[in-house]
């Protein structure tokens, strides 16, 4: 491993949560629907149908580009990517080739678990395309066949492509998690990995290290091959697939072979990758401008307007939580991990300002982080009530409690004497007396501490 440097790039597909499909008005929420009930001549590729792009999907694609610090070119267009596979009814996919909506971005990842180092991953492009139909490989009447459901065909799909800047499988996972977080914060997709609304495709190769190469950086000496692992639906599988590929390539290279440039799949049961589509001809998609869709020309004003729709993103929210609420970086990063959790936290904070209670943000943060209450059933208001109830005992007025303890000490010289002469059990009697006088409002361990201090 030490003689090689892994070179990893990522492609991520994100299905947008628009109401309608990318180029037609069919309902884009196909999940769980009966097969072929969300289709029309456009998304079935019937002759003469005219695709018209969904304005919101384009804006959301640009929003993602902006959130990833991309440049947004003012001129953009759609292209046809031609290939024959039955998941595409038209024989081509409407995608973007040389003029994507966003280019040259970057995302900084800051893995807390591994020290204060940050890592910048460059984003090559963010483009808009359409999802494909779903294929089911089946046997009907003893014959193998492929069944097609076109409900997903034409659902807006954003593809995000990084430069090959990633060097370890951990970095890849950190990047993917961060990207997932941002997509969720942007509110443009549920990014649900299990439903396939976010799909991951790492491409991996490894390069032999040499002294010279250690000094040089970047693309000038990328390996001659790369292996792409398709359609992974979990961060951990992506990490495992990368690790698997790295060791597979090292083995091949050590034995004098070069890994084959190919597409592979991930077998989550066996924890291995396997060769896919090797019979497929060389990729030649013969892209050309989509003649049915006029080009898109943005104005600076529109770009500005879209930029203004970007909400506070995870990094900014982490910083604000640290600054405004005095949370540790660790606590803040856990709270912001999920958008809903961070909002739940802030709503709870609002409850305390309203109620003027003595509950600190740190206490609320702990409750949420340690999952003492289930946020799906406990409202922020109820959470504060719960915390208040729990805190009421130790929150008993300190001078009152002090007074009661002193009275108990005066009234029980015998027990005090026993305690002082070494019978430690006598303290339990005294605690009991205090608890009775405070009608159970005091916190027993607090009382014990106060008592032992006073009896020193």
């Amino acid at each position, binding site marked *: 491993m030490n003689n090689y440097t892994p070179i990893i790039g990522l492609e991520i597909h994100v299905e947008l949560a*628009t*109401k*309608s499909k990318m180029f*037609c*008005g*069919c*309902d884009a929420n196909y999940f769980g629907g*009966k*097969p*072929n*009930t*969300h*289709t*029309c*001549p456009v998304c*079935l590729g*019937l002759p003469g149908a005219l695709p*018209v*792009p*969904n*304005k*919101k*999907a*384009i804006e959301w694609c640009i929003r993602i580009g902006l959130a990833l610090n991309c440049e947004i070119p003012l001129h953009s*267009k759609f292209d046809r990517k*031609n290939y*024959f*596979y*039955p998941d595409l009814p038209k*024989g081509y996919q409407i995608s973007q080739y040389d003029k994507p909506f966003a280019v040259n971005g970057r995302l900084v990842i800051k893995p807390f678990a591994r020290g204060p180092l940050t890592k910048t991953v460059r984003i090559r492009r963010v483009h808009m395309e359409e999802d494909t139909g779903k*294929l*089911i*490989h*089946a046997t*009907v009447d003893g014959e*193998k*066949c*492929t*069944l*097609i*459901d*076109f409900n997903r065909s034409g659902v807006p799909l954003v593809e995000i492509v990084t430069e090959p800047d990633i060097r370890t499988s951990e970095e890849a996972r950190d990047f993917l998690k961060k990207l997932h977080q941002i997509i969720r914060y942007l509110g443009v997709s549920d990014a649900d990995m299990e439903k396939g609304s976010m799909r991951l495709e790492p491409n991996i190769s490894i390069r032999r290290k040499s002294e010279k190469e250690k000094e040089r950086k970047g693309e000038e000496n990328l390996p001659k091959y790369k292996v792409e692992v398709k359609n992974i639906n979990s961060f951990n599988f992506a990490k495992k697939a990368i690790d698997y590929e790295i060791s597979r390539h090292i083995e091949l290279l050590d034995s004098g072979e070069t890994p084959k440039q190919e597409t592979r799949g991930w077998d989550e049961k066996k924890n291995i990758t396997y060769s896919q589509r090797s*019979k497929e*001809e060389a990729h*030649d998609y*013969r892209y050309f*401008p989509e*003649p049915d*869709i*006029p*080009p*898109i*020309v943005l104005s600076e004003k529109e770009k500005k307007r879209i930029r203004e729709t970007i909400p506070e993103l995870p990094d900014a929210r982490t910083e604000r939580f640290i600054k405004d609420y005095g949370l540790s970086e660790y606590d803040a990063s856990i709270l912001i991990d999920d958008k809903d959790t961070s909002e739940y936290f802030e709503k709870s904070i609002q409850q305390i300002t309203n109620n003027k209670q003595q509950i600190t943000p740190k206490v609320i943060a702990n409750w949420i982080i340690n999952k003492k209450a289930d946020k799906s059933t406990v409202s922020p208001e109820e959470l504060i009530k719960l915390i208040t109830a729990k805190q009421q005992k130790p929150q008993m007025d300190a001078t009152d409690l002090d007074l009661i303890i002193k009275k108990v000490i005066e009234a029980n010289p015998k027990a005090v004497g026993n305690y002082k002469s070494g019978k430690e059990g006598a303290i339990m009697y005294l605690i009991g007396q205090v608890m009775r006088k405070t009608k159970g409002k005091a916190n027993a361990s607090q009382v014990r501490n106060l008592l032992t201090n006073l009896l020193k």
Partner: protein
Amino acid sequence: MADINANLSIPDVKKIAVLANIPLTDEEARKLAGELTQTLHFIEKIKKIDTKDIKPTSHVTGLSNVYRDDQISPSLTQKEALSQAKSTYKGYFKVPAVLKD
């Protein structure tokens, strides 16, 4: 791809045919090699036109930013969607197996 000035070879034509998913007989490939070569030569001729002051474009309509709002309109019924298909099964389009195991 062949040099643009040379003739398109039969293997070139066959490769294009595979990409376009069109089966060709040898005879058809030979005939098309000639015809497509002519087309290429014609494009060579067009390329000689002086286009120094002409902006590149991918469209001729002069339109831009033709969008639709994100609104749902009714889809076809499953029956309608499948009505033109050669073969269907339980609401799905059915085609020859794409995976060969």
